[in-house]
């Protein structure tokens, strides 16, 4: 290869590389151009109120020890982020360019830990951690995840899952087809689904009401001696795990379902209406009032440590 030919070859290769590099850069740059970053801060009192609305994408919230709300987010092209309010209350939401087809917005928000927080989404997932104030969380089909010890937690979904890890003093969670899991302890719990399963486990519980229509219920926790526990389902399976030496007055009734007692030697008896089964037992001389009722779902009692 002559010198001229070589330099021509090198030039052509370099040219191709440049084009490839330019196309690569454009490809990498296009998502960044389609999305928009936001970062804002506003002051909000430690016990202020904050409302967040984001239809699609995700909302991740962290409690922190500052009287400031800070948000970092990624918005869809053309979408606009709004945030405003005063020291006692603030609000943030996303304005989509196409309301019928909103693009996902990812919001990560830091809030004063004792804030009263209200979040509403459609399909966006909600993830809240370390907030000790009150939480009102609503999704249609997203997932709600809460970690920490909020004073009150109200979580509602239609077909989304709800997962709670921690010790909210007061907890209400409802979904229709989604799953509810609660790992922790609480003095007042109300959980409800239609067909979604509910699983509760952890520390000491006081007032507890769990109901489904066809969803399975699994409970394994310590019963406060003065507590009341109600488990109701139409046709779901109910499995109750109780520590061996726990005092309780237990009553289980089914219209057509079976009862299996792996907790004590007390045997269930046939139901008073000619079908189903009933079981009454008072381990350790009685204590927490436990009522388990199903139409046709099976009930199982078992010992836990």
């Amino acid at each position, binding site marked *: 290869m002559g010198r001229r030919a070589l330099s021509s070859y090198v030039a052509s290769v370099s040219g191709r590389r440049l084009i490839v590099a330019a196309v690569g850069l454009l490809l990498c740059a296009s998502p960044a151009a389609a999305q928009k970053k936001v970062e804002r801060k506003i002051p909000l009192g430690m016990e202020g109120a904050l409302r967040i609305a984001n239809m699609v994408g995700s909302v991740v919230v962290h409690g922190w020890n500052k009287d400031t709300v800070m948000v970092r987010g990624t918005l869809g092209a053309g979408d*606009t982020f709004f945030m405003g309010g005063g020291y006692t209350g603030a609000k943030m939401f996303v304005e*989509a360019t196409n*309301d019928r087809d909103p693009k996902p917005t990812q919001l990560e928000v830091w809030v004063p830990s004792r804030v009263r927080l209200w979040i509403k989404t*459609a399909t966006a997932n909600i993830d809240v951690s370390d907030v000790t104030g009150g939480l009102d969380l609503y999704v249609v089909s997203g997932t709600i995840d809460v970690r920490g010890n909020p004073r009150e937690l109200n979580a509602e979904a*239609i*077909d989304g899952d709800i997962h709670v890890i921690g010790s909210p003093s007061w907890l209400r969670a409802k979904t229709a087809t989604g799953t509810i899991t609660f790992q922790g302890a609480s003095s007042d719990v109300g959980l*409800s689904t239609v067909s979604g399963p509910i699983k509760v486990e952890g520390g000491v519980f006081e007032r507890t009401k769990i109901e489904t229509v*066809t969803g399975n219920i699994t409970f394994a926790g310590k019963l406060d001696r003065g507590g009341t526990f109600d488990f109701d389902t*139409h046709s779901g399976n109910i499995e109750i795990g109780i520590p061996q030496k726990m005092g309780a007055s237990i009553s289980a009734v089914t219209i057509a379902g079976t009862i299996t007692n792996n907790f004590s030697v007390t045997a269930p008896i046939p139901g008073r209406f000619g079908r189903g089964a009933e079981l009454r037992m008072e381990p350790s001389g009685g204590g927490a009032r436990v009522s388990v009722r199903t139409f046709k779902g099976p009930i199982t009692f078992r010992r836990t440590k």
Partner: protein
Amino acid sequence: MTHEVIKHLLDDYVTGDLTEEARPPVEEHVIACALCAAEVESLRRILARAAELPKSIDPPADAWSNIRSAISRDEAAVRASSSVSRPSIWQRRYVLAAAAAVLVAVLSSAGTALYMSGHYSGARSNQAIANSSSAEGTPATLAAFTIEENNYLRTASMLQDLLDQQEASLAPATVAQLKASLRTIDEAILEARSALARDPANKLLLEMLSASYRQKVDLLRRTTELTRGT
């Protein structure tokens, strides 16, 4: 303020919670924008319908007198049965007939309401239940239950109407899930009702039926509330 921003303020506008500064631009926009005007109209309709919902519902005028007389008859029957002289077959028949009448009224009114609601698939089965006259139980409890049942049915029907209007704003998959859930609850209601027809004295069944109705109303209410503004 743009249309998208104002859209988020319509709730507060309708309920009168907007600040004095924010109200005029929203008002101007609502006059000019057909979409927002329709939304405001829809919100006002919802508020008006919600306001129409009674805070507490009084039972029908003759319900309590029927219950009282049924209880008195029950008490009389108990007293008579514990006394030396047994009540005549006519007295016992009268008590049973009253109980059966109350049960038939209870079940047929519930069946009618279910049929009228148009969202319940078990109307025919309910008619069969209504025709059953195997009641020997507690007419007072049943009568009280039927009042509660009618309230649930009325509320469920209103909420279902609202939801039908808002259905377009839900994803098809969510609508399918919702309908499946409502069907699941309706099936549970139907099953419990059939069992109640066989076992009218079973208080547990009444409570289970109540719980299923409560679940249905709650699911409809929750969906209606969540759908607004999504």
